[in-house]
């Protein structure tokens, strides 16, 4: 029975959510064997779920889990080494309860983040690996978010972990000269996870990958506050995520940014995001994520104040394209040109991207808006239909095919959700 009222069950679940990566880092740092550590931690969590509801929650749940998991890890090694049946872990538990360290366990998760995004690990599996290893997400859920088959995702994760173990990927913080690039790889993976979560609009919070990415961004900022881009990424995610409650109307219809009810936005997330952006900017080292966060901040300010900020937005996109050129940024800038009344410039900018954008939904949506503004209704409808055909989201598809989309002035923001760069993934 899934008894939410049972404190033992709730504590075990909370421990799983908050302590997973912390414990996994400690269990795998010496052996580098993440798969074995995962099995041991799963054993410990299962025992906690079985025992805490009756026995009560230990004073230090993390330490209890760690001790049981470490014992299970030892058994696993013993079994592997001697092929002898190990003593059942259960018989040890009472001894464990008397013999558990009370001190706080060290937090080695930053090293785990570096391991998951090590250059020896294929770029496309880094974000999934991080979600599994640091947060304990199961492969099927990760596969769905990244739109790959569960079997393929499981295999890729198993291969990546084997590579970490066999190639000896170090569980360390990289030396100072490598640190900026390695932190950038962590940010890219977190943002890829956020991009995968951005489109998930189900009310079911169990599929909330965006929330997991936000957790990781907060964690990275806390563990490595020296790099302002970490706070920039956190600010970007917060400022986009704040708008989530306003992105659909009561009927589930898509609501473009310029028509969202700003009273539905999460004020606390916006305040946290603005504060993170200010803190990052104070360090005087601008970068891709600070610029993207500043862009989202201006979008929000535009809605709060009614001011036309399209000129500064275009300037920010210029700077973004200098440091991190991507199709997503170029398309978003073309949209900003349209809003600033420069539709011909927008069309030229889009034309320059045409060869790379055949299947790029935001490109077609933006093009449709530009063509509508320029008065070419037939071509606009055709482009809107193409954008709709490339959309995964029924609400966005409906919107793109509606009269509304081409009829209202700046509604092109529609198909331009905040983190489209992450969705289309072309970090410089």
């Amino acid at each position, binding site marked *: 029975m899934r008894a939410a009222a049972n404190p033992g069950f709730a504590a075990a679940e909370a421990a799983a959510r908050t302590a997973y990566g912390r414990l996994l880092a400690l269990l795998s740092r010496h052996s580098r064997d993440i798969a074995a550590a995962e099995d041991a931690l799963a054993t410990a969590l299962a025992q906690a779920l079985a025992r805490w509801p009756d026995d009560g929650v230990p004073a230090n749940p993390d330490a209890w889990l760690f001790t049981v998991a470490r014992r299970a890890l030892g058994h696993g090694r013993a079994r592997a080494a001697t092929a002898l049946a190990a003593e059942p872990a259960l018989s040890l538990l009472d001894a464990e309860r008397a013999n558990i360290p009370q001190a706080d366990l060290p937090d080695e998760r930053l090293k785990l983040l570096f391991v998951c995004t090590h250059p020896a690990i294929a770029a496309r599996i880094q974000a999934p690996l991080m979600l599994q290893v640091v947060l304990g997400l199961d492969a099927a859920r990760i596969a769905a978010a990244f739109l*790959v*088959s569960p079997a393929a995702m499981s295999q890729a994760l198993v291969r990546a972990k084997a590579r970490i173990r066999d190639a000896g990927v170090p569980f360390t913080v990289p030396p100072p000269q490598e640190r900026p690039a390695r932190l950038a790889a962590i940010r890219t993976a977190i943002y890829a996870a956020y991009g995968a979560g951005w489109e998930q609009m189900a009310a079911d919070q169990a599929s909330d990958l965006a929330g997991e990415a936000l957790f990781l961004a907060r964690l990275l900022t806390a563990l490595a506050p020296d790099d302002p881009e970490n706070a920039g990424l956190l600010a970007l995610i917060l400022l986009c995520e704040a708008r989530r409650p306003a992105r659909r109307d009561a009927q589930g219809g898509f609501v473009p940014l310029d028509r969202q009810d700003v009273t539905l936005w999460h004020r606390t997330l916006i305040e946290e995001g603005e504060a993170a952006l200010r803190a990052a900017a104070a360090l005087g080292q601008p970068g891709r994520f600070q610029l993207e966060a500043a862009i989202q901040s201006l979008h929000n300010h535009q809605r709060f104040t009614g001011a036309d900020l399209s000129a500064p937005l275009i300037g920010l996109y210029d700077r973004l394209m200098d440091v991190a050129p991507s199709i997503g940024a170029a398309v978003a800038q073309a949209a900003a040109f349209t809003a600033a009344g420069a539709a011909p410039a927008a069309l030229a900018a889009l034309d320059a991207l045409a060869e790379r954008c*055949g299947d790029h939904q935001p490109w077609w949506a933006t093009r449709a808006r530009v063509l509508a503004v320029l008065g070419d209704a037939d071509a606009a409808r055709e482009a809107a239909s*193409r954008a709709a*055909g490339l959309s*995964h989201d029924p609400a966005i*598809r409906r919107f793109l095919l509606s009269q509304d989309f081409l009829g209202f002035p700046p509604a092109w923001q529609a198909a331009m959700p905040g983190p489209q760069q992450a969705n289309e993934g072309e970090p410089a």
Partner: protein
Amino acid sequence: MQYALIYHETAAELARRDSDTSAYWGAWDAYMGAMGAAGIMRGGAGLLAPDTATTLRISNGDWQVEDGPFADTKEKLGGFVVIEVADLDAALAWAARAPCAAAGSVEVRPTLPPQAN
């Protein structure tokens, strides 16, 4: 590789063919148009409603002909296409764009390679 994308629709979604005609077909036209423009279409067909089906079985020489589809399932076969794409990930990306992905399901299956004989 070639994959069949097999589109299954809920009864409610199928009913939209009549009740919500322009939105229903508009979405499918846009989707099929995007696949056509991408140059990946190799074949396929949309199917009329399941109640237009006639199902034949021969069991021990006994012919059975029934009105309706082969099985009374919750989701009904609405149509299929065959596409040529690089890999399963690309096929899944196109499957996810299908209007019925959110109102039914899309089965993605590799086609049998042509037999050389």
